């Protein structure tokens, strides 16, 4: 009970949706050293594969769904191992969190790679509302009915 204070919250919700690396991060510093896509064949450590970037192209919720594009614009066999692993995994719907967990990629790294792949047309993103938006009444009612049927 003694600890029931709000002193923690300088870092809490008032900080808004900005996560690590989203505020004042060196961001795109590594990008220029990154070769043009199609050329990244080496198996590299996770944070290197993002070219040092910690900020994804799109604001992806951890539960945002992704699936592999049925007709990828590039020959899948030329992709990096990370890209290929994600393409394989996303033959069925997967959330950003599942890609991170199943491929043992830190969440932030998974986000950057997934957003890049979506940008390149390799993945389709399924995020029906902004990452900050709470589900509306209609969606909540569908969830309720789904839970009751479980």
């Amino acid at each position: 009970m003694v600890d029931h204070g709000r002193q923690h919250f300088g870092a809490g919700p008032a900080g808004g949706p900005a996560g690590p690396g989203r505020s004042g991060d060196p961001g795109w510093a590594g990008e220029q050293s990154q070769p043009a896509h199609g050329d990244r064949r080496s198996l590299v450590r996770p944070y290197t594969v993002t070219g040092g970037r910690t900020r994804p192209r799109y604001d992806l919720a951890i539960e945002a769904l992704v699936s592999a594009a049925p007709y990828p614009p590039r020959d899948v066999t030329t992709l990096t191992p990370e890209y290929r692993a994600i393409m394989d995994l996303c033959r069925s719907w997967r959330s950003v969190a599942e890609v991170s967990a199943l491929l043992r990629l830190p969440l932030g790294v998974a986000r950057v790679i997934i957003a890049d792949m979506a940008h390149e047309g390799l993945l389709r993103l399924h995020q029906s509302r902004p990452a900050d938006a709470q589900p509306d009444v209609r969606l909540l009612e569908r969830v309720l009915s789904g839970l009751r049927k479980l």
Partner: protein
Amino acid sequence: MTSVKIVVGGGFGVGKTTFVGSVSEIQPLTTEAVMTAASAGIDDLTAVPDKTTTTVAMDFGRVTLESDLILYLFGTPGQHRFWFMWDDLVRGAIGAVVLVDTRRLADCFAALDYFEESGLPYIVGVNGFHGEFTHTNEEIREALTIGSEIPIVQVDARSRESTKQALIVLVQHALQMQSAGPAPAPGPAWT
């Protein structure tokens, strides 16, 4: 194709992963986030002075509600001081179930504080170990200093049916909050 999420909070060892696992269609998975020195300004790294980065893990499960609607259940990281992960969890969530062990009530205070501050709908789930509930809900409400509008339910986190009922109460509560008007949400408002 749509996905939604519910957050499961509470102190260490209160049964969050058990709760998630009892209703999940997959074995709970673990995702890790790396907190770097860049976020040290907003999170407290003093407890780990020798580290410039630290890893925070959280468990989650998945429930397919309809062929095109998937619910994810995320357990909050055990260490409450790593707020950056919580911000990510709470964004766009339906709400939260705060699990409470009546023998260690204070363990859930940080989670209660956080969800109240963020305006997220939440309910309290009293996890009765071995089916024993030694306090009435009103005693618990008073001890936690939460308003009468917050539902308190008794839960057996090992039981799929019990977990499911708690989730139903939470979604009903979230619906009630929406019909009562927009919650005071921090940050940019989406209308």
